């Protein structure tokens, strides 16, 4: 029953998001037709033509009805800016975003959790102070600035934009190497900025477990410190971190607007930015539905997984 409730709740949130998105973005200032045609010889008739093509000449309730009924049929509409179906435009950008943000999140989670465990285990040691200090600093640094700085100090070792060069050989190995080459700077930037979050959560939740009686028992059994940490302390302390990781995985799809902008990475974050400058209503709505959908699904997964990882949390 409760499981069905969870699913129902998730579905309801998605519908709410779709409805909210429609009205939310209409409040964004600006007229897409005016901003698109600015600077060109444009007549009032041409503006009216564009409005009609985009369906912006219909009353708002009608626009909403059209949007909602097509959404139920899986049609997200046509982007004003790119003049292609929104679903196609989003799908095309999904891969690059998953690659960049996925890679960076995996590295950041691994590195962050590992550093967090080490730092907590040897609390107040030099290692703890240095890692906590460095990661907090990086977390506080503006992403934009860090990205530009990395681009500058690495000179011409790494490319400054995009996912691949235009003149790379078409074979798979060259292309893969080229993408890897382009991936380095943006993912390093992203890892540096988000790593601290995982590290700090892991560190503090492990610190809470440090003086638990079961650890004394484990030590009394003669276990090596390393084993006490790995087999006993960490499994109990990892739950908050897992929640966080899943929330973050949900947000992977939303891309990393700043990082993608700095490095012109052709992902969803960059698309969001472009859509806002329109404002490209249908594209914005589509992006909101897709990214919110990912968060809802990941939340649901985190809920379910908690039950598996921690028998005390009963889902069903």
């Amino acid at each position, binding site marked *: 029953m409760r499981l069905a409730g969870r699913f129902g709740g998730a579905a309801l949130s998605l519908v709410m998001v779709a409805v909210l998105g429609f009205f939310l973005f209409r409040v964004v200032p600006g007229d897409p037709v005016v901003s*698109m045609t600015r600077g*060109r010889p444009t007549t*009032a008739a041409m503006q009216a033509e564009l409005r009609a093509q985009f369906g912006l000449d219909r009353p708002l309730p009608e626009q909403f009805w059209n949007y909602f009924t097509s959404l139920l049929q899986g049609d997200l509409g046509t982007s004003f800016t790119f003049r292609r179906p929104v679903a196609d435009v989003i799908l095309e950008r999904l891969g690059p975003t998953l690659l960049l943000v996925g890679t960076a999140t995996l590295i950041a989670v691994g590195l962050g959790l590992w550093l967090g465990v080490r730092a907590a285990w040897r609390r107040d040691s030099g290692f703890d102070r240095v890692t906590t200090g460095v990661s907090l600093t990086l977390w506080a640094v503006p992403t934009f600035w860090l990205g530009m700085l990395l681009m500058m100090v690495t000179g011409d070792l790494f490319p400054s934009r995009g996912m691949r060069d235009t003149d790379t050989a078409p074979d798979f190995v060259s292309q893969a190497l080229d993408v890897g080459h382009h991936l380095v700077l943006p993912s390093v930037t992203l890892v540096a900025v988000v790593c601290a979050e995982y590290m700090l959560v892991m560190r503090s939740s492990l610190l809470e477990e440090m003086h638990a009686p079961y650890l004394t028992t484990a030590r009394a059994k003669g276990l090596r410190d390393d084993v006490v940490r790995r087999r006993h302390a960490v499994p109990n302390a990892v739950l908050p971190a897992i929640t966080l990781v899943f929330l973050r995985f949900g947000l992977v799809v939303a891309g990393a607007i700043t990082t993608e902008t700095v490095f012109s990475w052709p992902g969803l974050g960059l698309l969001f930015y472009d859509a806002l400058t329109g404002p490209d209503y249908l594209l914005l709505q589509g992006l909101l539905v897709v990214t919110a959908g990912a968060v809802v699904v990941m939340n649901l997964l985190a809920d379910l997984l908690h039950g598996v990882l921690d028998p005390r949390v009963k889902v069903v």
Partner: protein
Amino acid sequence: MILKVAIVQQIDSMNPFLAVFQSSTEIGRLMYDYLTAYTAADQTVTEGLANKWEPSPDKLTWTFTVPEGKKWSDGEPITARDVAFTYNLMLSDSVARTANGSFVTNFQDVTAPDDRTVVIRTKTPQVTMLALDVPIVPKHVWEKVSGIKDYANDQMPVVGSGPFVLTEHVAGQFIKLKANKNYWRGAAKFDELHFVYFQNSDAAVQALGKGEVDLVNRMAPAQFDSLDGKAGVTRNKAQGRRFTELMINPGAQTRTGEPIGDGNPALKDVRVRRAIAQAVDLDALVQRVNLGYAEKGSGLVPPVFGKWHWQPTEQEQRRFDPAAANAALDAAGFPRKADGTRFPLRLIGRAGRAYDEQASEYLKRSMGEIGIPLDVRLVSDNQLNEATTAATYDLAFSGWATNIDPDFILSLHTCAQRPGADGKGGTTDAYFCDETYDKLYAQQLSEFDEGKRVEIVKQMQARFYDQVPAVILSYENALEGYRSDHFATFTTQPAQGGVIMAQNGMWGYYGAEPAGRAVQAQGSRWVGLALGGAVIAVLVAVVVVMARRRNATAGERE
């Protein structure tokens, strides 16, 4: 040899009937020739697809000749029928008028009596018949297109008549074109032209420094200065086609005379507008805000367009003089109040645009000196557009790029451009509406003697300057940079101090000449590639080692 160009604006469509973004139009110029063109050297009208043209004595019928021998990129001959097909498509299908409809509104009909002759009849005499910025498409390809609205024009390679052929377009990443071997002026001197997309102009400038791209434009003064003395990079400080203006709400009204917006009523008084203009030190703005990379503003047409540009005479000139401005405001019936101010005004500009940020601070001081406290609001591009469209501003920053033929920029200030009663459908720039100006506008549009037309256009600019619905602040230089170790020269338009990119033509790219021995930075690139590989390898190794260690120690447990 590849020419790589950085672009910072998205591409909306490769369909020339739909593409409205500047970047798309620029690439469209490379793919399709127009009926006529402008020379690179002095921006005069020259051969496009047509090499001869003749208006009838009543100026209502134009006959263009499309000479034999020009070919589409697929080898088919270019004929008058292609031209007639393109214009007729626009006349019959409103979707096909999306991007360039303004050029055909005055067309009566277009016919091609034979393969060489195009006859265009207009409703009224139209002087801009040699300035039709309409890409001509191949009939044999486009007559098979069923719906213009959904046609992406991505059947690679895209058949065209321009110096380059579109071969690949990856949205948000890059666009590739190849030199058109059939181009009637002769093929370009290099093989491929790639446009790579940058979201971030700082990164584009860095990429130029590293040799990742060969050509970058629209740099900010600071970015331009940062490339000074950089090995392998040559900078081009060109006379720009853009101007920046300070709009002064002259009491905005709709086409039907209804007031619209909430401009301060004091600004309806032309004496007040003149006083404001007089209190702004244009020289200081050019020096301090444009860092010298601009020319002081005067008329609506920038000096790069030579004969069309207007400069005030000694008597007309409004000199920077705060004392005179104060006296004028007193005389206009706006005395200073007890606190020393006259009336407050709002200034709206764009957040994140360096010019607006700095110039607004400067204007705050200038206006303060004449007793006008300024409330500065810097907002997003969209908000700024919304405020200027709805006339909810007192003062606002704006700017325009202009064309060789001044008709468009002049038309923006006619009464008819104001919005209808519902506040929609307006394309006015500054809500200017002036009988004298409108009369002159109509005159110049049917004045076929160029000398006389130039005179009328200058009178219009003088009238605009005198009535001040906006102060033209400056004509910015176009700041460009290129890799001179890869490409020795580019054709600029005009030849003296002209631009490479964003021309009224395709000369900049088409005329690029590769440097004698091009040293593309392949060496360092391989180092980078190897490094990329190494980083990936290390990452994999770390994961593997950690996993194995895990297993190994797991075996040692109690």
